[in-house]
């Protein structure tokens, strides 16, 4: 077993375990942390697949930014509330498991029929990754995929604005009467205001 395979067999089970942990954890924060573990393992897989740039991006964007965002929202909505794990839909869980299993089997069949389980990755990826993966990726991205890249930037701006519009709570004018009722304001006095 080569070093690569060893690394794979160390991190692949951790990835699956992380996914299962996320699936089963009652607490949303735990689930998020399990997902971070899983995402980190996937980042390692990218390294094994000779995509060091994506490895970095995966850790920074996913494990870093996105999961932090998730955690923020979880905190915002209240963590102490445990998730209700009862299932009101009859047959939902067994059917879901059956379908998931069927999916795995199907992928297995497809992989077996397509590339076979023993096929190694071809040689010569170094040539593709010449001058380093980041440069090579940049070359492809900014030459062949330049328009999609620009469109994606537009998408990000729209998403940012959309998030603000959706989550922004319009400040409601608070009336004096409400403030008085809450005891935040003393009722107006009879005497003339001080000059």
């Amino acid at each position, binding site marked *: 077993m080569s070093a690569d395979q060893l690394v794979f067999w160390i991190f692949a089970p951790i990835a699956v375990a992380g996914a299962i942990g996320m699936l089963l954890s009652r607490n949303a924060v735990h689930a998020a942390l399990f997902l971070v573990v899983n995402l980190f393992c996937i980042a390692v897989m990218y390294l094994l697949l000779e995509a060091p740039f994506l490895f970095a991006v995966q850790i920074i964007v996913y494990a870093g930014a996105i999961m932090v965002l998730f955690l923020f929202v979880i905190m915002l909505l209240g963590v102490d509330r445990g998730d209700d794990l009862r299932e009101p839909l009859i047959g*939902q869980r067994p059917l879901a498991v059956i379908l998931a299993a069927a999916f795995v089997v*199907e992928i297995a069949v497809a992989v077996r029929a397509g590339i076979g389980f023993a096929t190694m990755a071809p040689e010569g990826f170094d040539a593709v990754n010449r001058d380093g993966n980041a440069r090579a990726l940049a070359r492809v991205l900014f030459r062949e995929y330049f328009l999609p890249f620009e469109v994606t930037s537009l998408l990000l701006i729209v998403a940012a604005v959309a998030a603000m519009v959706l989550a922004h709570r319009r400040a409601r004018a608070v009336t004096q009467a409400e403030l008085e009722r809450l005891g935040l304001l003393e009722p107006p006095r009879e005497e003339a205001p001080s000059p």
Partner: protein
Amino acid sequence: MVGAELTSAAVTPTLGLLWLVPALPLAAAAVNLFWGRRLKRAAGWLASAAVGAAFVLSALVVAELFRLPAQERLFVQHLFDWIRVGAFRVGADLRLDALSATMILVVTGVGTLIHVYAVGYMEGDPRFGRFFAYLNLFVGAMLLLVLGGNYLLLYVGWEGVGLCSYLLIGFWFEEVANANAAKKAFVTTRIGDTAMLVGLAFIVWRFGTLDFDPVLGRAGATLTEGAATAIALLLLGGAIGKSAQVPLHVWLPDAMAGPTPVSALIHAATMVTAGVYLVVRSAPIFEASPVALPIVLVVGLVTMLYAGTSALAQTDIKRVLAYSTISQLGYMFMAAGMRAYAAAMFLLVAHAFYKALLFLGAGSVIHGMHGEQDLRAMGGLLRRMPVTSATTLVGVAALAGVPPLAAFFAKDQILEIANHTGRPLVWALGSLGALVSALYVGRLAALAFLGRARSRAAERAHESPPTMALPLVALAVGAAAAGALNVVPEGRLAHLLEPVVGAVPHGEGIPAWALSTLGGLIAVVGLAATWVVYASGRVDHEMLAARLEPIPRMLGAGWYVDAAYERFVQAPTLAAARFIAGVLDARGVDGLVHAIAGGVVGIARIGRRIQTGFVRSYALVFLFGAIALLVLVGARS
């Protein structure tokens, strides 16, 4: 044969103005319709001015036409192509010949006077402007009717005047009775109009065109007797409806619900004569059929006697005149049925004058008595309304046929032609009708103007304003002098009309002077008799009427024709409609629809259970679909 022999005159500057004759009233109608409320009283003067201008123009154009030689007195003004479908085309053509010239002069002339009168009569009405808009629209449509150079344009005018008639009968629609009368008029005439429309379709089928020249010129050659009869009778159906002949006469007495100027203009002088005009205009088609003209004659004769007797027992002054109008129109149909088209037209012109006069006089009486229309409440108005009474009495004498007023000549000629063409029965019944008309009109005059006042309203009656009195005087002059148009059957009017409608039929019979003397005698005797009964005070006419029951009641109800229609036409129709609506439609058609709808609802009720609203269920199905799709793709490759 007639019509086609005329050659069309070249356009001259004056003749070229022909299109303005209908256009002016129509334009004024548009102005009054949109700005009538703002114009206030000016709306009436604008309307009168428009019709007056149309009259002056008509006079100019007609004078120009009659300057031409007799065989060239035809002018067709092509305004634009209206319909062009393959070989079939209809132009917006105005056709001026002696016949339409007579008609436009009557329509605009009498129309102007009635407009002026209406300015006074409708004073203070909240919908003053709208009234004149409708009135102008009517005049425009009527001019289009008589000037139309083809049957379709005639039909446009025909329906236009029908619409205006409806709008004006129901002008005071706040009263349900008025609205119902308008509806009755519209629906009843519609029966005839539908027949006429079918007739037009027949004409298109047979001739491929609706233009008068080819249709009327080739009528005898193109049509078989059966086809000619069919077309003629269908057209006659329209004429019967529009001219209120038996059996479609029932709407005209009820049409008196409209303002009196409307009754005068539409339901006496002009619109109702459109039927006569149609028969005269379509004479070649009628002549091509062996039975059409006799049917016209019989319809006219029956109507004349029926309506005359009904008029005898009416108590509403306007209903007397309405039945009288029906009766007079019957006379015109009689004349047309005897091919005496010129005599029919002569009576039409004369009748327009004296009947408009009588109606306006009646309107003036009603105005002076603050809305009272019952003859029994009148009496002795001669002293309190001198102008109205004097002019109306001229109209009465004219209608009765007192020589030398208009109807004396007109009726006399019709009776003379009846006698001289070997129709003694027609002559006898016509003379009887003349006596009856003298009786009912004499009764009206005696009850309204002579004797003593029989109500407080009659005692306090006042003379009408000058705008109403002046047209009365003008019409009285016309009614008195109209006879001069055609003193003998082959007189001036007949001569002018000859190129269009053909020569007046003649023959031998009782000498003309004897017939005329008899006619005059009938009128004088009739009037004198009514004076004795109703005004002299020597006879208690109410006792007399009571002793004659149930005849007066039957006559007053118009021989119960309305009741019979209600019983035998209306009630079964309503019952059938109720059956169709309540049973066939509600249970049958709706039942089927409801059953289908119910079935769909039922299926949907079951089907919507799939829609649980649980997103995760949907996701499950979604995933299942995705996997199934992958299996499918995998299995194929």
